[in-house]
């Protein structure tokens, strides 16, 4: 039973995607990764609207003070085991927004992160590579 769950998780991880104060560039690149040219759906990845259905949380953007508690709440709503991808330099470290008074920094200040994908904005190919790394990690966990 456990192995079936692990197998299905690797074959079809469902992602939830959240913008925590990004400039939209990473958002459109993550969306572009889902559209025909790059097409991460061939790995069985589906975009979901609710945190309760998701295995992987993809976060774009530096965390603003308004969004930080909400990000935490979304993360807590996801069922275990859960994984987080930080897409973009802002999500990784705060990036270009250093010194802005309303920005906390990277998302690892709020929730634990499994895969960091750098880039400003992330290239869809980098998103695919990040996802592939995460799948390898899942394989090990199994």
């Amino acid at each position, binding site marked *: 039973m456990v192995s079936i769950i692990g197998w299905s998780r690797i074959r079809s991880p469902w992602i*939830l*995607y959240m913008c925590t104060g990004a400039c939209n*560039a990473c*958002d459109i690149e993550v969306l572009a990764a889902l*559209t025909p040219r790059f097409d991460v759906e061939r790995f069985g990845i589906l975009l979901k609207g609710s945190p309760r259905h998701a295995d992987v949380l993809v976060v774009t953007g530096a965390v*603003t003070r308004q*969004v930080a508690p909400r990000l935490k709440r979304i993360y807590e709503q996801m069922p275990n085991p859960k994984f987080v991808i930080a897409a973009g330099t802002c999500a990784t470290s705060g990036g270009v927004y250093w010194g*802005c008074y309303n920005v906390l920094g990277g998302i690892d200040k709020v929730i634990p992160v499994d895969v960091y994908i750098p880039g400003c904005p992330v290239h869809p190919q980098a998103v695919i590579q990040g996802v592939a790394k995460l799948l390898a990690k899942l394989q090990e966990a199994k």
Partner: protein
Amino acid sequence: MSTYKIPVGPQHPAIKEAFQFNFELDGEIIVNVKPRLGFVHRGIEKGMELRSWVQGIYLSERICGICNVPHTTCYCIAVEKLHDVDVPKRAQYLRIIINELNRIHSHLLWLGVLGMELGFLTFYMYVWRDRERVMDLVELISGNRVTPSMNFIGGVVYDITPKMEMAIKKGMDYLEERTKYYKSVVLNEPTIKVRTENIGVLNKSAATDLCAVGPVARASDLKTDVRFDDPYSSYDEIPFNLVTYSYCDVFARVLVRVDEVLESINIIRECLDKLPSGPIMKKLKRTPPPGESTVRVEAPRGELMYYVKSDGKENPYRVKIRTPTLANIPAVCEMLKGYHIADIPAIIASIDPCYCCTERILFIDKARNKRWIWSHSQLRKYSLEWYENGGRR
């Protein structure tokens, strides 16, 4: 009779920029709308004051990732005004080209998103596939797909070689053919027409009163376009048509944007034919002299304004930015009144709000003191089912 109140957003600011609309409903009909802004406020205007003039370019580029080119163009022109210099002619033409490429990518992106909001996913996938062609061209010129970092104070950073020129012209031919096809789809496809015609009407006088800008104003038959009214960067030397429609509804906003893509393609062709030779950059001092300047440019979503003040030091003294989406929010509140819950996604999408946040909805039934939460996808599903079962027609 019970009244409902629905806050749309921002608890879950996924996918879209977070702002909240509080809807007051009479049954299914929207009576009143109150917007609440500031969820993705990062403090960029203050951040600009902490950075040097050059670093400011790259921060302004990241205010909005979709229309990043008009932001840097506007900032650079404002600083050049402080220096009181004109950039070389070739740089001005290159700025027009990269601005129009950005407009094409932004409008196609929006067209796809509208298709998604209407539940027409095939359309979304097709449009985004063709949009990749623009991204390739931007990548060819600058090495980055979305944020080209093309503009610099005093000119542009990257030049267009004859080889790139050929590639751009080829790309434009392909895009023109595809965009014409999408226009025929929009004009003939009942799925789109049913959901957009006579929805979200904003008549001409209301658009004037509420200071609507960009495609929203042009869809309400207002002849307003900064490229025409206050030409910057040699736009006055390029002939192009101002697209307006008089239907005033969501359908008109779709048509305005599709036609603008076709206009942009012609502008790019014209620029490439007329492209003057010469330098692409004028070297300027690190800090501009004291003074202030205000510059307007036409971003894909409408008029974008920068006010820059210098006191002769390393950093700007003040940078004030007004983006087109903010200008269009009073208009969208007016548009929503009198329509159904099912029309909310289409109407809000119609102003192209840099994607707005309708990700989660809290419904409160005051009479029964009941609360429930709908996500954006549930709202979309509800709206699709509502129309499938006949809707109000």
